[in-house]
C-alpha cells in the first residue's frame, strides 16, 4: 500500500501573513494529501490565526488537499477548555484531538483523529479510542519501529488510519511554563510574544557548545530534524497509512516532493539522500527513535541492515 503525505500543524508562532503564504504555496505546489491547521502549542497564539482558518482551508481544498483542524496539546485555563469544547462540537472540519479534555466533549458518533500528544502507545489504547469514534491515530514521535508495526496491523483490523512523523523536529516535552518567555526574563502572562522572533525555535546549546535542543514556547524540541526518508519503504510494507511532515524553516515543498517520489517508488533512498543534500537545512537529520536508539542519533544505511 502507498502511504499518503500530510503536512502537520505549524508548531511555531509564525505571523498570520507568513502562514498564509506558506499554505498558499502548499496548496498549489506540494504533493501532499492532507494539511493539518490550527494552533497546537499555545492558546495565546490562537486568536492570531483562528480567524483565517476558514479561508485557508478553502484555499487548500481548492488545491485538492484534505483539511484537518487540530486542538491544543495542553488544556488547563478556561479559554483553553472552551476552545477544546468548541472544537469537539460538530463543525465543518475534520478534527484532530490532542488532549483528553477534547475527548470528553466529543458528541457521540463525532468522527475525529487522535494527535501525537495524546500518548497512543499500544493497541489497547487505540482500540479504546477507535470504539469511541477515532478514525485515525498519529503515534508519539518516540515510538520504535517494532511497536509501529504492531500498531499498523491493529489499525488495519480496526479500519483506521495510522500516521508517523517522518520529517521535522521531534517534540520532546511540553510544560505549564513558557521557556521562551523565561529566556527573556518574562512570564507566560507577560510574554509579549517573544517566540515570534524564532521561526525555527530558540536554540539551547550545551555549555560545551554542542547544539542540543530548541525552545518553542511551552514546548521543548530536538535540535535535529527527524528524517525517516530511508525508512519509507519499510513503513509502506508495515501498512502505515500517512507520513507527517512538520513545517520547518526550510523549503517544505521540496521536502514533500522528495517524500512523494519515495513513497511512489520513483526514487530510492540513495537518490533521496542526494536530493536532501541539495535542500538548505539548518539542522542535522536524526532517525534514532525509529530504530529504538537514542533519538538524536542517525543510523546510517549500512548499519541499518543490522539494526
Amino acid at each position, binding site marked *: 500500500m502507498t502511504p499518503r503525505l500530510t503536512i502537520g500543524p505549524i508548531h511555531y508562532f509564525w505571523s498570520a501573513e507568513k502562514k498564509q503564504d506558506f499554505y498558499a504555496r502548499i496548496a498549489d505546489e506540494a504533493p501532499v494529501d492532507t494539511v493539518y491547521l490550527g494552533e497546537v502549542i499555545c492558546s495565546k497564539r490562537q486568536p492570531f490565526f483562528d480567524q483565517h482558518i476558514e479561508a485557508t482551508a478553502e484555499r487548500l481544498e481548492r488545491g485538492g488537499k484534505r483539511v484537518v483542524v487540530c486542538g491544543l496539546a495542553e488544556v488547563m485555563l478556561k479559554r483553553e477548555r472552551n476552545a477544546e469544547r468548541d472544537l469537539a462540537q460538530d463543525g465543518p472540519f475534520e478534527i484532530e484531538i490532542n488532549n483528553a479534555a477534547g475527548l470528553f466533549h466529543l458528541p457521540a458518533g463525532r468522527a475525529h483523529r487522535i494527535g501525537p500528544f495524546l500518548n497512543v502507545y499500544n493497541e*489497547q489504547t487505540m482500540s479504546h479510542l477507535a470504539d469511541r469514534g477515532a478514525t485515525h491515530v498519529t503515534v508519539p514521535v518516540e515510538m520504535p519501529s517494532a511497536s509501529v508495526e504492531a500498531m499498523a496491523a491493529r489499525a488495519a483490523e480496526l479500519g483506521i488510519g495510522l500516521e508517523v512523523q517522518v520529517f521535522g523536529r521531534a517534540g520532546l516535552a511540553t510544560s505549564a511554563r513558557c521557556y521562551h518567555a523565561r529566556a527573556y526574563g518574562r512570564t507566560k502572562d507577560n510574554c509579549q510574544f517573544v517566540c515570534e522572533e524564532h521561526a525555527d525555535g530558540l536554540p539551547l546549546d*550545551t*555549555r560545551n*557548545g554542542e547544539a542540543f535542543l530548541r525552545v518553542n514556547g511551552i514546548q521543548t524540541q530536538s535540535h535535529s530534524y527527524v528524517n525517516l526518508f530511508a525508512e519509507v519503504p519499510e513503513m509502506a510494507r508495515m501498512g502505515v497509512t500517512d507520513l507527517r511532515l512538520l513545517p520547518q524553516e526550510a523549503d517544505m515543498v521540496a521536502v514533500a516532493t522528495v517524500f512523494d517520489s519515495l513513497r511512489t517508488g520513483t526514487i530510492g533512498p540513495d537518490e533521496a539522500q542526494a536530493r536532501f543534500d541539495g535542500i538548505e537545512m539548518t539542522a542535522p537529520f536524526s532517525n534514532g527513535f525509529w530504530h529504538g536508539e537514542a533519538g538524536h542519533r542517525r543510523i546510517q544505511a549500512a548499519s541499518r541492515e543490522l539494526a
Partner: protein
Amino acid sequence: MTAGELVCPAGTPASLRTAVDAGADSIYCGFQNATNARNFPGLNFTSQELGKAVQYAHERGSRVLLALNTYPAAGNFDLWRDAAGLGAQLGVDAFIVADMGVAAYIAESHPDVRLHLSVQAAAASPDAIRYYVREFGVKRVVLPRILTIPEIREIKKEIPCEIETFIFGNHGLMVEGRCSLTNYATGLSTNMDGVCSPAHLVEYRRDPDGSMSSRLGPFTIDRFDPQESAGYPTICKGRYCNEAHPEGYYAFEEPISLNLSRLLPELMDAGVNAFKIEGRQRSRAYVKKVVAAFRAAVDDIRAGRAPALADLAALTEGQKQTEGAFQTKKWR
C-alpha cells in the same frame, strides 16, 4: 475539611515498613520493571516482597497503592497485564495508572480494585479528569504540580472523584507523561521504560581547567566550577546557552524542592483528599523524617492545633524550596 490522607513513597521493602511505622496512611510502590515510572537500578519490589509488604501494611491499617504508571509500547502489554494480575492477587488497595489501555484493561479485568489516575496521565482540567472517571471509573486523580489552590478548588467542584496533590519533594514543571528528553539523549524512554536519566549513561568528566561536566549520553547537561557541587544530570535541571544567555542558564527550572507544609490547612479546605510525598528513589532515613513530620502536622491541623511547621522547613535545609505553582501563577 478533608482527612488529609498521607501518601508516602517506598523504593524498597525496608522503606515501606519505615513509612508505615512513621504514620503513612498509604504507601505507593512499584515492581522491578518498566511498569512503573521509577524503574531504577536496585529499587522496587519483587512479587514476594510486595506480598509481604501488603500484609505488613494491612496489619497496621495502612494501604498499598501499586504504581503501573508507564505507557506499554505495542507488543509489550503483557508485562503490564501480568503486573496488574499480580497486584490484584496480592491484595493491593489501588492501581495508579496513566495509559488508557492499561486503565481499560484493569477496569474490565479487576473491577474491584480502585483506579487512581497517575500524574503521568497529565490530566490538568476537569474535562480531562471527567473523561477518565466516565470511561474507566477512576476514583482519584493525582494533579500535576502546576495548579494554584484557587484552581484546585474550582476543579474539585467539577469532578466526581478524589484529589491527590504533591506536597513535598522534587519540583518538576514539565508535563509528566509527555517527556521524551531522556529518550532523545539515551535511547531509553521515560514513558515506555520508566527511566529518567539512567545512571549507567551518566558520566562526570573533569575538564582540563578543573571544572566538572555532568553528562547524559553524549550531551553535557551542566558544567560546574571547581568549587561548585555538581548535580545529577537530569535534562530539565541543566544549564544551557543561547543568544539571551551566552554564559548558560537554567533554561527550564532552578534546582529547587517543593515544600507545601505551610499550605496544608488551605489545601485540606480546598478539598484535597490526599497528600503525596515524592521520592521513591530516596532513602528510608528521608522517608522516616518526612513522613513523621507530615504525620504530626496533619494530625495537628485535624485536631484544630497549629502545626509545628518548623520541623518541615528544616527538612529542606540547605536547599532552596518553593511553594511552586500553588501560590501564584507568576512562574509560568
